């Protein structure tokens, strides 16, 4: 460990390439915290957005107009407005209406802080895209399969949960993979409301050390690695779930 830190310290002195995150414990610490926060932000909002997507797609299969209209309106709204302004709308707009509590030492504390708002905004944004993805997946299932389930005595809800969702899930996975990668990239927007995620801490680091160029490149590489991990994991999952003879779409 010491040899690594001394190598990068030397590198800075010899070539001017200043990678403080690899030799300065303080910078390394905040960078890792940012990385963890980005990953947490991504994972939690990914799960929440999938739940929203399934619920919304379920709404769209209902024979009633009102839940359908709500799901469609939600999708149209979130897909046709900028995610950054959505985030501001939630954090500054709605956040201003949420009462503040007092913490143990008597200071005012927000009930829903900026990290929570980032989670909410990201989940709702990605959820809107997931509804479309799962809806397409559900509609790609032939009606005869649902009819078969009904004949076997499944109720409508049971058929949806045990027959439609597992099949639709497999059809939707490639599109879901793309959307989750988009979500990972969109977590950078939390920077704008002061959530100390990867971009935010990198900005702090390059402001303190004036090593903008190095940090930009580090940031780029880290995001590409994260995207690569998500893509790899999703492809693995896709392959593991593949049913023989089902899903002519996969080559």
């Amino acid at each position, binding site marked *: 460990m010491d040899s690594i830190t001394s190598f990068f310290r030397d590198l800075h002195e010899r070539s001017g390439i200043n990678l403080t995150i690899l030799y300065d414990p303080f910078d390394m610490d905040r960078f890792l915290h940012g990385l963890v926060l980005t990953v947490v932000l991504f994972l939690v909002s990914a799960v929440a957005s999938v739940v929203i997507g399934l619920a919304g797609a379920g709404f769209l299969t209902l024979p009633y107009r009102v839940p359908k209209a709500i799901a469609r*309106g939600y999708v149209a709204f979130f897909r*046709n407005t900028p995610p950054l302004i959505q985030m501001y*709308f939630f954090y500054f707009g709605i956040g*201003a209406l949420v009462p503040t509590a007092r913490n143990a030492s008597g200071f005012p504390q927000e009930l829903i802080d900026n990290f929570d708002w980032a989670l909410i905004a990201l989940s709702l944004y990605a959820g809107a895209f997931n509804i479309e993805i799962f809806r397409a997946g559900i509609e790609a299932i*032939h009606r005869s399969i649902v009819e078969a389930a009904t004949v076997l005595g499944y109720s409508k809800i049971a058929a949806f949960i045990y027959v439609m969702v597992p099949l639709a899930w497999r059809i939707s996975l490639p599109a879901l993979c793309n959307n989750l990668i988009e979500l990972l990239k969109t977590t950078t927007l939390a920077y704008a409301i002061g959530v100390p995620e990867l971009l935010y801490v990198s900005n702090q680091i390059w402001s303190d050390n004036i090593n903008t160029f190095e940090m930009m490149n580090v940031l780029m590489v880290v995001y590409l690695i994260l995207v690569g991990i998500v893509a790899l994991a999703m492809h693995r999952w896709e392959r593991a779930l593949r049913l023989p003879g089902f899903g002519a779409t996969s080559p």
Partner: protein
Amino acid sequence: MRGHVKLGPEVGVDLPLAKRRVRGAVEGDLASIFLAIAIVLGIVLALALLAGADTGLLGALIKWTPFLGKGFLLNVVMSLFAIFFGTIGGVFLGMGQLTPASWISLPAKILTQIFRNAPWLVLLFYCIFLLPFQIRIGGQTYAIASWLRAAIGFTIPVIANFSEIVRGAMQSIPSGQWEAARSLGYTWRQTVTSVILPQCVKRMLPPWMNLYAVLLMATPLASIVGAEEALTNARTALQAESNSLLLLPLYAYLLSWFFIYSYPIARLSMALENRFAVR
């Protein structure tokens, strides 16, 4: 259009048919209501503006409307700049990906993947920090406005995304077309420019319009790097008013601007996709 569409005799998965059903009915009902509300809101505001109303929150919204509109115009200008140069760049990069010469296709593929998978905001920071603040042309120094630097920052991911669209469309052309062109003595370049690409235009149009919508939705990021676009102007307005009750309506108002501009494009893109899919 909505409701049940009779399915054919196919069994199992029928993606194209499902997609067709999706496109027709997507985002109907409440979305149209949203649009109607937004338009009515716009008309009311316009009337109130003419009448010279100047009271309360509505008055504040009206007062700042021209200022926000000026900012929004910059969002549109940045998006048009990026889509114009991004499309040109994307066509070349996309063709490059399919060039037989690997010293062209490999870098083209790598560039596409890097810039397609990096966050837009990170690419924007790159351009803001690395582009020069001013350039000298023939002894004259010209400052590069921050909106222009941001627009260049948006162009890069657009190039990479469009490159993938071009590659996908070119590969979707049946290989018989390539072989037929070759047997007629066309070179690779002639095949691409006069046989393959013209057929791709139709297929690329809907994803291209989607890309434009994504791009427009990204333009408020320019506020983070200091361009005076709609979101920056909204924050300026909020600071000037310093009324926390105005936060929610003003951001909602701003969202509706983007919605009104983007929603018709989304509908048109779906309609086009639908039309092309049937043939």
